[in-house]
């Protein structure tokens, strides 16, 4: 459920649009087009959501849009994997005493880049644009990440001075739309990320609705104020892999081979896409179908891309097959909630993980405050997915100056820093139990799958029988 169909825009009398919206004979609190307005019937096919979706489409004349993440319940679940720590045949490290290395280096392909990125932890903050996020949220993420020795990424909307100032290390994103792309900003960056796609909407460009195109956002993106921005998905000046290689050479020339080049892919055919990207990039960022977003057509969130958990082993195999494992680094993202999920991603083959939605929650997303403002947009804490409206009740995904005051930068930065610390502790706890002195030594053998599906989809051995489920 996405658009704010509960908002009655002409309450007095019934206009043509009221009738289109099925308001005649309706009662307050049960507007058409919202699943909670319907009772569950017998059919598993025509659920309240399916009926509501048709009523919504027949009113809107277009697909629905929302933020947050997929609602597809069939996505492979991190909870279907467990760790099998060291016992008699492997030696654990002391979980409360011994150290476990968390240092993470990205872009250290031999002999190419003079300043690879060194992070103290294997987690960093995903690219989330200024525009999708408020400037305060960007600054808080930057300060929080810097406190624990990790980094942020600009996102589609150009380089925000507040974020650059707050972030000790920052990757600058080059999306197909190239909003505000600037030589000076490239040279201020510690890495450049070329976006080919993202997990929430692979194959489709960025989306930012008019409610969020404030004066400042419009200026940074060279857009008219208040338009519904739908960005391109193809880059304006390259098409295939050969051109991408030339484009990367240009970026390296512009930054004098100082900083690494990342390529971000939505997870669809990782075996082929990663093999291609490994030929040209220093770091590959693979964003699974669960990847969060500020706004996307709902159908793309729910029905495109493959789950992060299934994409990582395929990507690792592609790197192994192309002989680039260890040289080109793999960052995984999409649906990572905590250190346990992150540890599983590392064990499946990622060199680092990136978090978007979880970082917003550390900032206060979906926290039970300002309840009346959640209600105004037809939602409540715990089920809010309304980033696309720009009416974020807690000041994170908004450009409204009043709402933004609810995000207190320093305390929010502390929450992000503490959350990242806690996540890192969770990863090292699991790594040490598995006998690893570095989080990067986690491996597939440290995992077992609890279901046939998850074993078949990942290649992780099935619990008990100790064999991957194959056919």
């Amino acid at each position, binding site marked *: 459920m996405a658009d704010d169909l509960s908002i009655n825009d002409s309450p007095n009398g019934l206009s043509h*649009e009221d009738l289109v919206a099925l308001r005649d004979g309706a009662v307050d609190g049960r507007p058409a087009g919202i699943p909670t307005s319907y009772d569950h019937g017998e059919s598993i096919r025509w659920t309240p959501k399916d009926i509501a979706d048709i009523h919504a489409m027949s009113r809107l*004349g*277009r697909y629905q849009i929302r933020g947050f993440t997929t609602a597809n319940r069939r996505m492979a679940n991190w909870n279907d994997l467990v760790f099998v720590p060291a016992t008699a045949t492997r030696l654990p490290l002391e979980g409360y005493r011994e150290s476990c290395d968390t240092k993470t280096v990205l872009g250290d392909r031999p002999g190419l880049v003079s300043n690879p990125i060194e992070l103290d932890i294997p987690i960093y903050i995903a690219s989330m644009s200024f525009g999708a996020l408020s400037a305060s949220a960007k600054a808080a993420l930057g300060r929080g990440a810097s406190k624990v020795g990790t980094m942020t990424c600009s996102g589609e909307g150009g380089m925000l001075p507040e974020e650059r100032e707050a972030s000790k290390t920052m990757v600058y994103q080059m999306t197909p739309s190239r909003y505000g792309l*600037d030589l000076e900003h490239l040279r201020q960056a510690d890495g450049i990320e070329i976006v080919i796609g993202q997990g929430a909407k692979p194959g489709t460009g960025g989306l930012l*609705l008019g409610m969020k195109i404030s004066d400042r956002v419009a200026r940074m993106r060279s857009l*008219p104020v208040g*338009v*519904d921005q739908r960005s391109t998905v193809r880059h304006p000046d390259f098409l295939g892999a050969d051109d991408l290689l030339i484009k990367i050479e240009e970026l390296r*020339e*512009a930054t004098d081979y100082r900083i690494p080049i990342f390529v971000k892919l939505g997870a669809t055919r990782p075996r082929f896409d990663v093999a291609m990207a490994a030929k040209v990039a220093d770091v590959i960022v693979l964003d699974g179908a669960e990847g969060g977003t500020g706004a996307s057509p709902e159908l793309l969130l729910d029905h495109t891309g493959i789950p992060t958990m299934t994409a990582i082993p395929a990507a690792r195999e592609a790197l192994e097959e192309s002989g680039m494992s260890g040289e080109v680094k793999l960052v995984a993202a999409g649906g990572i909630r905590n250190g346990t999920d992150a540890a599983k991603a590392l064990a499946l083959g990622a060199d680092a993980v990136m978090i978007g939605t979880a970082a917003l929650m550390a900032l206060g997303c979906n926290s039970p405050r300002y309840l009346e403002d959640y209600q105004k947009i037809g939602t409540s804490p715990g089920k809010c997915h309304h980033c696309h409206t720009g009416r974020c009740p807690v000041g994170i995904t908004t450009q409204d100056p009043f709402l933004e005051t609810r995000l207190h930068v320093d305390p929010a930065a502390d929450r992000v820093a503490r959350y990242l610390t806690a996540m890192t502790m969770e990863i090292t706890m699991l790594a040490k139990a598995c006998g690893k002195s570095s989080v990067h030594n986690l491996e597939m053998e440290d995992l077992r799958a609890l279901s046939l599906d998850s074993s078949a989809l990942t290649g992780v051995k099935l619990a008990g029988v100790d064999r991957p489920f194959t056919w």
Partner: protein
Amino acid sequence: MTVVTVEVGDRPLRQINREIRALASTATEIVVTDPLSRHNLAVALTEDTPVRILGNVGYYCGGLNSGGVIHVEGDCGWGVGEAMARGKITIDGYAGMSVGASMRGGLIHIKGSAGPRCGVAQKGGDIVVEGNIGYLSGFMAHTGRIITLGDAGDATGDSLWEGAVWVAGDIKSLGVDSHPVEPPAEEVAEVEELLDGLGLADSTRDWKKVVSGQRLWYFESRDSSAWLMI
């Protein structure tokens, strides 16, 4: 006058561009010889020292420039002057796809014709093409002017924001949500003044200015048929 020569040939690109950048702060003119259609020549320049390239260049010549005055005595490949913020690029011959893609300022002057997607995602500055421009020119251009003295191809001005495609010749077909308007006299005067500066004055031109119909700027439920255009 210190005119210095940088030889391209098959030398490493990194060395060539480093020399051009270093010389830009000392020489009065840099002459680049034997360019052999190499890609990424003279990118990311910040000094306004003239760079004269004697021959054809490949992709992204003058890309990301924030300054620089480049004169190519030949043809160029894709994305000449892409993302340029400031400066001037002159191409004596023909240009490939995506001239000035996403450029933010400065001037690109193509004496021949330009390929498809000329001025794609342009965010400022001017592109002047003496010949024709290819299909989808001005695609999603935000601001700035794409000016052709010749004809424009199919789907001209597709999905424009506030950019404009100025066509003196014929338009083969218009892109989605774009339409030609008769430009106001003062805007014509500004364009003619720009052209005059390039030695291309001619007050008899019959300008068509292609701009956005703004129907695709907003998701508009009550006009859902507009969305079937794309």
